[in-house]
Protein backbone atom coordinates (compact mmCIF):
# COMPACT_ATOMS: atom_id res chain seq x y z
CA UNK A 1 0.00 0.00 0.00
CA UNK A 2 1.44 3.39 -0.94
CA UNK A 3 1.46 6.31 1.47
CA UNK A 4 0.43 9.88 0.57
CA UNK A 5 4.09 10.87 0.70
CA UNK A 6 5.01 8.16 -1.84
CA UNK A 7 2.24 9.23 -4.22
CA UNK A 8 3.29 12.88 -4.07
CA UNK A 9 6.95 11.93 -4.47
CA UNK A 10 6.23 9.73 -7.51
CA UNK A 11 3.94 12.33 -9.10
CA UNK A 12 6.69 14.96 -8.77
CA UNK A 13 9.72 12.83 -9.79
CA UNK A 14 8.02 10.24 -12.02
CA UNK A 15 9.76 6.89 -12.63
CA UNK A 16 12.99 8.10 -10.99
CA UNK A 17 11.01 8.79 -7.80
CA UNK A 18 9.40 5.31 -8.00
CA UNK A 19 12.84 3.65 -8.40
CA UNK A 20 14.19 5.66 -5.48
CA UNK A 21 11.32 4.61 -3.19
CA UNK A 22 11.60 0.94 -4.26
CA UNK A 23 15.32 1.05 -3.51
CA UNK A 24 14.64 2.64 -0.14
CA UNK A 25 12.12 -0.09 0.74
CA UNK A 26 14.55 -2.83 -0.29
CA UNK A 27 17.29 -1.27 1.84
CA UNK A 28 14.94 -0.95 4.79
CA UNK A 29 13.88 -4.60 4.47
CA UNK A 30 17.53 -5.72 4.23
CA UNK A 31 18.42 -3.65 7.27
CA UNK A 32 15.55 -5.11 9.27
CA UNK A 33 16.64 -8.61 8.18
CA UNK A 34 20.23 -7.90 9.26
CA UNK A 35 19.10 -6.54 12.64
CA UNK A 36 16.94 -9.61 13.37
CA UNK A 37 19.26 -12.29 12.01
CA UNK A 38 22.58 -10.90 13.21
CA UNK A 39 21.86 -8.69 16.22
CA UNK A 40 18.66 -9.19 18.21
CA UNK A 41 17.76 -12.72 17.16
CA UNK A 42 14.82 -14.29 15.33
CA UNK A 43 12.01 -14.69 17.85
CA UNK A 44 10.47 -18.17 17.83
CA UNK A 45 9.03 -20.48 20.47
CA UNK A 46 9.18 -24.22 21.07
CA UNK A 47 6.01 -25.92 22.33
CA UNK A 48 4.69 -29.45 22.68
CA UNK A 49 3.32 -31.86 25.27
CA UNK A 50 5.63 -33.17 27.99
CA UNK A 51 8.60 -35.38 27.14
CA UNK A 52 8.58 -34.54 23.44
CA UNK A 53 12.11 -33.07 23.48
CA UNK A 54 11.63 -29.28 23.73
CA UNK A 55 14.56 -28.76 26.10
CA UNK A 56 16.76 -31.07 24.04
CA UNK A 57 15.90 -29.21 20.80
CA UNK A 58 16.79 -25.84 22.33
CA UNK A 59 20.00 -27.27 23.79
CA UNK A 60 20.89 -28.83 20.41
CA UNK A 61 20.47 -25.46 18.71
CA UNK A 62 22.51 -23.78 21.44
CA UNK A 63 25.27 -26.28 20.76
CA UNK A 64 25.37 -25.20 17.15
CA UNK A 65 23.38 -28.26 16.02
CA UNK A 66 26.06 -30.69 17.10
CA UNK A 67 25.16 -34.05 18.57
CA UNK A 68 24.32 -34.04 22.26
CA UNK A 69 26.08 -37.06 23.67
CA UNK A 70 25.97 -36.44 27.37
CA UNK A 71 23.01 -34.07 27.68
CA UNK A 72 20.51 -35.32 30.27
CA UNK A 73 17.39 -33.14 30.24
CA UNK A 74 15.36 -32.56 33.40
CA UNK A 75 11.60 -32.04 33.49
CA UNK A 76 11.16 -28.30 33.04
CA UNK A 77 9.71 -26.79 36.20
CA UNK A 78 6.62 -24.54 36.25
CA UNK A 79 7.51 -21.08 34.97
CA UNK A 80 10.17 -22.50 32.67
CA UNK A 81 13.69 -21.18 32.25
CA UNK A 82 14.87 -18.08 30.49
CA UNK A 83 16.93 -18.75 27.33
CA UNK A 84 19.06 -15.79 26.22
CA UNK A 85 19.48 -15.20 22.47
CA UNK A 86 22.32 -17.27 21.02
CA UNK A 87 24.11 -17.73 17.71
CA UNK A 88 23.95 -20.92 15.67
CA UNK A 89 25.15 -21.93 12.23
CA UNK A 90 22.03 -22.90 10.28
CA UNK A 91 22.81 -24.32 6.84
CA UNK A 92 26.00 -22.34 6.35
CA UNK A 93 24.70 -19.05 7.69
CA UNK A 94 25.33 -17.73 11.18
CA UNK A 95 22.00 -16.74 12.70
CA UNK A 96 21.07 -15.27 16.01
CA UNK A 97 18.09 -17.12 17.50
CA UNK A 98 15.81 -16.06 20.30
CA UNK A 99 13.56 -18.77 21.77
CA UNK A 100 12.97 -16.56 24.86
CA UNK A 101 12.04 -19.36 27.27
CA UNK A 102 12.13 -23.09 27.63
CA UNK A 103 8.69 -24.07 28.96
CA UNK A 104 7.37 -27.39 30.17
CA UNK A 105 4.66 -29.36 28.39
CA UNK A 106 2.38 -30.42 31.24
CA UNK A 107 -1.29 -29.67 30.84
CA UNK A 108 -1.18 -27.16 33.72
CA UNK A 109 1.48 -25.17 31.88
CA UNK A 110 -0.54 -24.53 28.74
CA UNK A 111 -2.84 -21.85 30.13
CA UNK A 112 -0.06 -20.22 32.13
CA UNK A 113 3.44 -20.64 30.72
CA UNK A 114 2.58 -21.17 27.03
CA UNK A 115 0.14 -18.27 26.76
CA UNK A 116 2.50 -15.99 28.66
CA UNK A 117 5.42 -16.98 26.42
CA UNK A 118 3.36 -16.42 23.27
CA UNK A 119 2.34 -12.95 24.47
CA UNK A 120 5.83 -11.94 25.56
CA UNK A 121 7.80 -13.37 22.63
CA UNK A 122 5.37 -12.36 19.85
CA UNK A 123 7.13 -15.08 17.84
CA UNK A 124 7.73 -15.08 14.12
CA UNK A 125 7.70 -18.88 14.22
CA UNK A 126 6.51 -21.82 16.31
CA UNK A 127 8.20 -25.23 16.43
CA UNK A 128 5.71 -27.73 17.81
CA UNK A 129 6.96 -31.15 18.86
CA UNK A 130 5.07 -34.42 19.00
CA UNK A 131 6.32 -37.99 19.29
CA UNK A 132 5.01 -41.53 18.89
CA UNK A 133 3.47 -41.77 22.37
CA UNK A 134 0.16 -40.53 23.85
CA UNK A 135 -1.61 -39.31 20.70
CA UNK A 136 -4.48 -37.78 22.71
CA UNK A 137 -2.15 -35.54 24.73
CA UNK A 138 -0.38 -34.35 21.57
CA UNK A 139 -3.67 -33.67 19.80
CA UNK A 140 -4.97 -31.73 22.84
CA UNK A 141 -1.74 -29.71 22.95
CA UNK A 142 -1.82 -28.95 19.21
CA UNK A 143 -5.47 -27.90 19.39
CA UNK A 144 -4.66 -25.71 22.37
CA UNK A 145 -1.90 -23.94 20.42
CA UNK A 146 -4.18 -23.38 17.42
CA UNK A 147 -6.87 -21.95 19.75
CA UNK A 148 -4.23 -19.74 21.33
CA UNK A 149 -3.21 -18.42 17.91
CA UNK A 150 -6.84 -17.62 17.12
CA UNK A 151 -7.43 -15.86 20.44
CA UNK A 152 -4.20 -13.91 20.90
CA UNK A 153 -4.64 -11.27 18.22
CA UNK A 154 -1.69 -9.11 19.21
CA UNK A 155 0.77 -11.96 19.78
CA UNK A 156 0.06 -13.75 16.48
CA UNK A 157 0.62 -10.63 14.39
CA UNK A 158 4.24 -11.55 13.52
CA UNK A 159 3.66 -15.28 13.02
CA UNK A 160 5.14 -16.45 9.73
CA UNK A 161 5.77 -20.18 10.14
CA UNK A 162 4.63 -23.22 12.11
CA UNK A 163 6.80 -26.32 11.99
CA UNK A 164 5.46 -29.59 13.40
CA UNK A 165 8.37 -31.86 14.22
CA UNK A 166 7.50 -35.51 14.85
CA UNK A 167 10.49 -36.16 17.08
CA UNK A 168 12.28 -39.30 18.24
CA UNK A 169 12.42 -41.03 14.85
CA UNK A 170 15.34 -42.97 16.35
CA UNK A 171 12.67 -44.77 18.41
CA UNK A 172 9.86 -45.14 15.84
CA UNK A 173 11.67 -44.84 12.50
CA UNK A 174 12.29 -48.56 11.93
CA UNK A 175 8.64 -49.54 12.30
CA UNK A 176 6.66 -46.50 11.18
CA UNK A 177 6.81 -43.48 8.90
CA UNK A 178 5.85 -39.92 9.90
CA UNK A 179 2.74 -40.34 7.71
CA UNK A 180 1.72 -43.44 9.69
CA UNK A 181 2.11 -41.51 12.92
CA UNK A 182 0.19 -38.52 11.61
CA UNK A 183 -2.69 -40.68 10.42
CA UNK A 184 -4.46 -40.07 13.77
CA UNK A 185 -3.96 -36.30 13.43
CA UNK A 186 -6.14 -35.88 10.30
CA UNK A 187 -8.45 -33.23 11.76
CA UNK A 188 -5.63 -31.34 13.43
CA UNK A 189 -3.52 -31.24 10.25
CA UNK A 190 -6.54 -30.01 8.26
CA UNK A 191 -7.25 -27.37 10.85
CA UNK A 192 -3.59 -26.29 10.90
CA UNK A 193 -3.57 -25.85 7.12
CA UNK A 194 -6.81 -23.87 7.21
CA UNK A 195 -5.49 -21.66 9.97
CA UNK A 196 -2.21 -21.15 8.11
CA UNK A 197 -4.12 -19.94 5.04
CA UNK A 198 -6.39 -17.71 7.12
CA UNK A 199 -3.72 -16.16 9.39
CA UNK A 200 -1.02 -16.11 6.74
CA UNK A 201 1.76 -18.36 7.96
CA UNK A 202 3.54 -21.29 6.32
CA UNK A 203 3.38 -24.74 7.85
CA UNK A 204 5.35 -27.98 7.45
CA UNK A 205 5.38 -31.37 9.09
CA UNK A 206 8.72 -33.13 9.41
CA UNK A 207 9.65 -36.41 11.08
CA UNK A 208 13.08 -36.64 12.62
CA UNK A 209 15.28 -37.02 15.64
CA UNK A 210 16.82 -34.12 17.51
CA UNK A 211 19.23 -36.55 19.18
CA UNK A 212 20.60 -37.70 15.83
CA UNK A 213 20.01 -34.48 13.90
CA UNK A 214 18.31 -36.26 10.97
CA UNK A 215 14.83 -36.42 9.46
CA UNK A 216 13.04 -39.70 8.82
CA UNK A 217 13.77 -39.30 5.09
CA UNK A 218 17.48 -39.34 5.82
CA UNK A 219 18.14 -35.60 5.34
CA UNK A 220 19.66 -33.49 8.06
CA UNK A 221 17.29 -31.76 10.44
CA UNK A 222 19.36 -28.65 9.86
CA UNK A 223 17.89 -28.41 6.35
CA UNK A 224 14.35 -28.33 7.78
CA UNK A 225 15.38 -25.74 10.33
CA UNK A 226 17.01 -23.63 7.64
CA UNK A 227 13.73 -23.61 5.71
CA UNK A 228 11.89 -22.65 8.91
CA UNK A 229 14.25 -19.86 9.93
CA UNK A 230 14.50 -18.52 6.38
CA UNK A 231 10.70 -18.26 6.36
CA UNK A 232 10.51 -16.29 9.60
CA UNK A 233 13.22 -13.76 8.81
CA UNK A 234 12.03 -10.29 7.73
CA UNK A 235 13.35 -10.87 4.22
CA UNK A 236 12.34 -14.51 3.56
CA UNK A 237 14.68 -16.67 1.45
Amino acid at each position, binding site marked *: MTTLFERVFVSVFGQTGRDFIDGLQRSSSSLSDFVYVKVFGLPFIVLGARQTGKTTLIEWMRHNLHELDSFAP*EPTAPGGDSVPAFSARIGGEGMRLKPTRDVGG*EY*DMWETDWVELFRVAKPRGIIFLVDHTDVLAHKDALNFVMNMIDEEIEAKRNLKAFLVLVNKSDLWGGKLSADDLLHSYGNEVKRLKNQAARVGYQTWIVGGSVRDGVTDSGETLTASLRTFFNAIRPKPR
Partner: protein
Amino acid sequence: MPTLTLDYVLEGRQRGYQFTSDTRGVAPDQLKLIWRNAIPRGSAWSDPAYRGARSLKCFTVDDAGAGSIAVCDVIGTDQVDEVGRTGIRRAVIQVMRYAEYQAFLRERLAAIPVAVIRDAERALYARNWDLLLKKHSNAVHSPLKPQTVFTDDYSPERWRFVEACLLLLVTRATVLTNLIEVTPKVNPFADRALSFTTLALDAREESRLVAIPAAKAAGLRGIPVVNLG
Protein backbone atom coordinates in the same frame (compact mmCIF):
# COMPACT_ATOMS: atom_id res chain seq x y z
CA MET B 1 -4.13 -19.50 55.07
CA PRO B 2 -3.87 -22.47 52.71
CA THR B 3 -0.87 -24.71 52.25
CA LEU B 4 -0.24 -25.76 48.64
CA THR B 5 1.86 -28.61 47.34
CA LEU B 6 3.47 -28.50 43.92
CA ASP B 7 4.56 -32.00 43.08
CA TYR B 8 5.61 -34.16 40.16
CA VAL B 9 2.93 -36.79 39.55
CA LEU B 10 4.00 -40.04 37.90
CA GLU B 11 0.67 -41.80 37.62
CA GLY B 12 -2.74 -41.14 36.11
CA ARG B 13 -3.86 -39.37 32.93
CA GLN B 14 -2.21 -36.04 33.64
CA ARG B 15 1.35 -36.50 34.75
CA GLY B 16 4.17 -34.14 35.56
CA TYR B 17 4.26 -31.00 37.69
CA GLN B 18 0.93 -29.97 39.18
CA PHE B 19 -0.70 -28.75 42.37
CA THR B 20 -1.60 -31.87 44.32
CA SER B 21 -3.34 -30.03 47.14
CA ASP B 22 -6.65 -28.22 47.16
CA THR B 23 -6.15 -24.78 45.62
CA ARG B 24 -9.50 -23.36 46.68
CA GLY B 25 -9.12 -20.20 48.73
CA VAL B 26 -6.28 -18.84 46.59
CA ALA B 27 -7.20 -16.23 43.97
CA PRO B 28 -6.46 -17.39 40.36
CA ASP B 29 -3.97 -14.59 39.76
CA GLN B 30 -2.10 -15.43 42.95
CA LEU B 31 -2.12 -19.10 42.02
CA LYS B 32 -0.57 -18.30 38.63
CA LEU B 33 2.10 -16.20 40.32
CA ILE B 34 2.87 -19.03 42.75
CA TRP B 35 2.91 -21.57 39.91
CA ARG B 36 5.44 -19.56 37.93
CA ASN B 37 7.73 -18.61 40.78
CA ALA B 38 7.63 -21.26 43.50
CA ILE B 39 10.41 -23.45 42.13
CA PRO B 40 13.91 -21.96 42.00
CA ARG B 41 15.39 -21.42 38.52
CA GLY B 42 18.20 -23.18 36.77
CA SER B 43 19.04 -26.62 35.48
CA ALA B 44 21.41 -29.33 36.74
CA TRP B 45 19.25 -30.20 39.74
CA SER B 46 19.86 -33.79 38.67
CA ASP B 47 23.49 -33.38 39.77
CA PRO B 48 23.91 -35.73 42.77
CA ALA B 49 25.25 -32.75 44.77
CA TYR B 50 21.79 -31.14 44.74
CA ARG B 51 19.74 -34.25 45.44
CA GLY B 52 17.96 -33.55 48.70
CA ALA B 53 19.03 -29.88 48.54
CA ARG B 54 16.58 -27.50 50.21
CA SER B 55 15.71 -23.99 49.17
CA LEU B 56 13.52 -21.41 50.83
CA LYS B 57 11.94 -19.01 48.38
CA CYS B 58 9.67 -16.15 49.48
CA PHE B 59 7.91 -13.55 47.36
CA THR B 60 4.95 -11.21 47.56
CA VAL B 61 1.72 -12.42 45.98
CA ASP B 62 -0.48 -9.55 47.11
CA ASP B 63 0.83 -6.17 48.19
CA ALA B 64 -2.51 -4.64 49.14
CA GLY B 65 -3.92 -4.40 52.67
CA ALA B 66 -2.45 -6.92 55.07
CA GLY B 67 -0.35 -8.31 52.19
CA SER B 68 0.25 -11.96 51.28
CA ILE B 69 3.59 -13.64 50.90
CA ALA B 70 4.23 -17.08 49.43
CA VAL B 71 6.74 -19.03 51.49
CA CYS B 72 8.00 -21.95 49.40
CA ASP B 73 9.97 -24.77 50.93
CA VAL B 74 11.53 -26.61 47.99
CA ILE B 75 13.43 -29.87 48.02
CA GLY B 76 15.32 -31.71 45.27
CA THR B 77 13.82 -35.21 45.17
CA ASP B 78 15.23 -38.52 43.95
CA GLN B 79 12.17 -39.15 41.75
CA VAL B 80 12.74 -40.54 38.26
CA ASP B 81 10.08 -40.06 35.57
CA GLU B 82 8.92 -42.57 32.93
CA VAL B 83 11.76 -41.71 30.55
CA GLY B 84 14.44 -41.68 33.23
CA ARG B 85 14.68 -37.93 33.84
CA THR B 86 15.76 -36.73 37.28
CA GLY B 87 16.26 -33.31 38.87
CA ILE B 88 12.62 -33.20 39.97
CA ARG B 89 11.70 -30.83 42.77
CA ARG B 90 8.81 -30.59 45.20
CA ALA B 91 7.50 -27.39 46.74
CA VAL B 92 5.31 -26.89 49.80
CA ILE B 93 3.93 -23.39 49.75
CA GLN B 94 2.34 -21.50 52.61
CA VAL B 95 0.61 -18.25 51.86
CA MET B 96 1.04 -15.96 54.86
CA ARG B 97 -0.10 -12.53 55.89
CA TYR B 98 2.74 -10.03 56.24
CA ALA B 99 2.70 -10.09 60.07
CA GLU B 100 2.80 -13.90 60.14
CA TYR B 101 5.63 -13.85 57.62
CA GLN B 102 7.76 -11.59 59.81
CA ALA B 103 7.28 -13.97 62.74
CA PHE B 104 8.11 -16.94 60.47
CA LEU B 105 11.41 -15.34 59.38
CA ARG B 106 12.41 -14.59 62.96
CA GLU B 107 11.64 -18.19 63.99
CA ARG B 108 13.59 -19.57 61.04
CA LEU B 109 16.57 -17.41 61.95
CA ALA B 110 16.33 -18.40 65.61
CA ALA B 111 16.50 -22.09 64.62
CA ILE B 112 20.01 -21.60 63.17
CA PRO B 113 22.89 -22.13 65.65
CA VAL B 114 24.17 -18.89 67.19
CA ALA B 115 27.73 -19.54 65.97
CA VAL B 116 26.53 -19.75 62.36
CA ILE B 117 24.59 -16.51 62.71
CA ARG B 118 27.65 -14.82 64.18
CA ASP B 119 29.72 -15.98 61.19
CA ALA B 120 27.02 -14.71 58.85
CA GLU B 121 26.96 -11.28 60.52
CA ARG B 122 30.74 -11.03 60.23
CA ALA B 123 30.67 -12.08 56.58
CA LEU B 124 28.02 -9.51 55.73
CA TYR B 125 29.75 -6.75 57.70
CA ALA B 126 32.98 -7.40 55.79
CA ARG B 127 31.12 -7.07 52.49
CA ASN B 128 29.32 -3.79 53.08
CA TRP B 129 30.91 -2.10 50.07
CA ASP B 130 30.33 -5.13 47.89
CA LEU B 131 26.66 -5.10 48.88
CA LEU B 132 26.35 -1.42 48.20
CA LEU B 133 28.21 -1.25 44.89
CA LYS B 134 27.55 -4.53 43.15
CA LYS B 135 23.79 -4.37 43.26
CA HIS B 136 23.89 -1.18 41.21
CA SER B 137 26.27 -2.60 38.63
CA ASN B 138 23.90 -5.45 37.82
CA ALA B 139 23.36 -4.93 34.11
CA VAL B 140 20.56 -7.45 33.83
CA HIS B 141 18.22 -6.46 36.63
CA SER B 142 16.19 -3.27 37.00
CA PRO B 143 18.18 -0.35 38.43
CA LEU B 144 15.18 0.58 40.57
CA LYS B 145 14.85 -2.87 42.10
CA PRO B 146 18.39 -4.23 41.85
CA GLN B 147 19.12 -7.86 42.46
CA THR B 148 21.92 -9.00 44.73
CA VAL B 149 23.46 -12.37 43.95
CA PHE B 150 25.45 -14.29 46.57
CA THR B 151 27.69 -17.26 45.91
CA ASP B 152 29.57 -19.80 47.94
CA ASP B 153 30.85 -23.34 47.46
CA TYR B 154 27.84 -25.58 47.80
CA SER B 155 27.47 -28.15 50.53
CA PRO B 156 24.35 -28.75 52.64
CA GLU B 157 26.24 -27.69 55.80
CA ARG B 158 27.72 -24.56 54.24
CA TRP B 159 24.28 -23.55 52.99
CA ARG B 160 23.01 -23.11 56.56
CA PHE B 161 25.47 -20.23 56.77
CA VAL B 162 24.28 -18.85 53.42
CA GLU B 163 20.65 -19.13 54.56
CA ALA B 164 21.59 -17.27 57.76
CA CYS B 165 23.10 -14.46 55.66
CA LEU B 166 19.93 -14.08 53.60
CA LEU B 167 17.64 -14.28 56.62
CA LEU B 168 19.68 -11.59 58.36
CA LEU B 169 19.31 -9.38 55.34
CA VAL B 170 15.57 -9.87 54.87
CA THR B 171 14.74 -9.41 58.51
CA ARG B 172 16.63 -6.14 58.20
CA ALA B 173 18.22 -7.04 61.49
CA THR B 174 21.27 -4.79 61.16
CA VAL B 175 22.17 -1.43 59.72
CA LEU B 176 24.11 -3.02 56.88
CA THR B 177 21.01 -4.76 55.59
CA ASN B 178 19.80 -1.35 54.59
CA LEU B 179 22.53 -1.34 52.00
CA ILE B 180 20.31 -3.76 50.09
CA GLU B 181 17.29 -1.57 50.40
CA VAL B 182 16.41 1.07 52.96
CA THR B 183 13.47 -0.06 55.06
CA PRO B 184 9.98 0.86 53.80
CA LYS B 185 9.56 2.86 57.01
CA VAL B 186 11.95 5.39 55.49
CA ASN B 187 11.79 4.65 51.76
CA PRO B 188 8.23 4.60 50.39
CA PHE B 189 9.43 2.83 47.21
CA ALA B 190 11.03 -0.05 49.05
CA ASP B 191 9.53 -3.53 48.81
CA ARG B 192 7.53 -4.33 51.88
CA ALA B 193 8.90 -7.84 51.80
CA LEU B 194 12.19 -8.34 50.00
CA SER B 195 11.89 -11.46 47.82
CA PHE B 196 14.66 -13.99 48.33
CA THR B 197 15.79 -17.49 47.35
CA THR B 198 18.30 -19.34 49.49
CA LEU B 199 19.33 -21.75 46.70
CA ALA B 200 18.85 -21.42 42.95
CA LEU B 201 21.05 -22.64 40.08
CA ASP B 202 20.50 -19.54 37.94
CA ALA B 203 20.07 -15.95 39.05
CA ARG B 204 18.06 -14.83 36.03
CA GLU B 205 14.40 -14.11 36.81
CA GLU B 206 15.10 -14.94 40.42
CA SER B 207 14.38 -13.02 43.62
CA ARG B 208 15.87 -9.67 44.68
CA LEU B 209 18.26 -11.65 46.90
CA VAL B 210 19.42 -14.99 45.61
CA ALA B 211 22.18 -17.39 46.57
CA ILE B 212 23.69 -19.70 43.97
CA PRO B 213 26.54 -22.21 44.20
CA ALA B 214 29.89 -20.79 43.08
CA ALA B 215 30.08 -23.50 40.39
CA LYS B 216 27.00 -22.03 38.71
CA ALA B 217 28.13 -18.41 38.97
CA ALA B 218 30.60 -18.82 36.11
CA GLY B 219 27.73 -18.90 33.64
CA LEU B 220 26.29 -15.55 34.72
CA ARG B 221 27.14 -12.78 32.30
CA GLY B 222 26.72 -9.17 33.32
CA ILE B 223 25.58 -10.15 36.79
CA PRO B 224 28.00 -9.24 39.57
CA VAL B 225 28.08 -11.57 42.54
CA VAL B 226 28.96 -11.15 46.23
CA ASN B 227 31.14 -14.07 47.27
CA LEU B 228 30.40 -15.16 50.82
CA GLY B 229 33.27 -17.65 50.98
